[in-house]
């Protein structure tokens, strides 16, 4: 994925596209990036969502009986 650098604007004409660089389709941005356009950069990879911490369930050891409650 490619994106327009922050603060960069303008009307761009390339590969048959003529319009705002900010509205250019991905393939146009990709082309501009590969030919060294100074207003286009690679978009950073989206951050993976951190998994929610789940408290471990503490089980009784298998086969062991729960301590008897003294009467």
């Amino acid at each position: 994925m490619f994106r327009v650098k922050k603060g960069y604007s303008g009307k761009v004409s390339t590969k048959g596209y003529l319009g705002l660089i900010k509205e250019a389709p991905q393939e146009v941005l990709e082309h501009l990036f590969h030919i060294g356009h100074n207003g286009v950069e690679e978009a950073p990879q989206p951050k993976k969502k951190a998994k929610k911490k789940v408290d471990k369930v503490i089980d009784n050891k298998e086969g062991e009986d729960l301590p008897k409650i003294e009467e």
Partner: protein
Amino acid sequence: MSFCLTGGISGNCTDSCAGGIGRVYIAASEALTAVTTGGAAGEVDSLTMSLAPVGVFFEFEFYQETAAFTETLERPQGNASVVSSLTGTLICRSQEKRNAIMELASCSCGLVVIHEEASGKRFIWGLTKAYLDTLAFGYNAQLVSGEGVSGAVITDNNQETITIEAKSAAKALELDSTVVIPV
């Protein structure tokens, strides 16, 4: 290390190119903000125009077979100097043409020119390093002369002839066919 010469030019039996200039487009230097040379052979394959104010190229329609582009490369001391020059005639003098010529004359920061030759090839010149770092040194184009004549007899021409020139360390660049000129 790489060699300074990397290839030759083969003749083509079908080569035949008519002379002449078709369309001419001119923009103020600040109207263009960037170019890239990503074409297969280094052609200019993208133009980025200013957004505020909106930058565009304006078409100048010269009378048929009056416009000509000349590019002169000189290298007396080993440094190439190229003068790109376009001369064309606007027939029938008028206030509108007077205004357009005076506007060209007031562009002291210069101009960028695209012209289309009869061969169908389009060339862009008057470019500086401000548009592309890898470009050789160059100045924006300037209107260098204009001559308006009324003519004396009926068969004389009543016209304005203007010349725009740019000086650079390299020849004009071809404009890739995929580029739509923002007008």
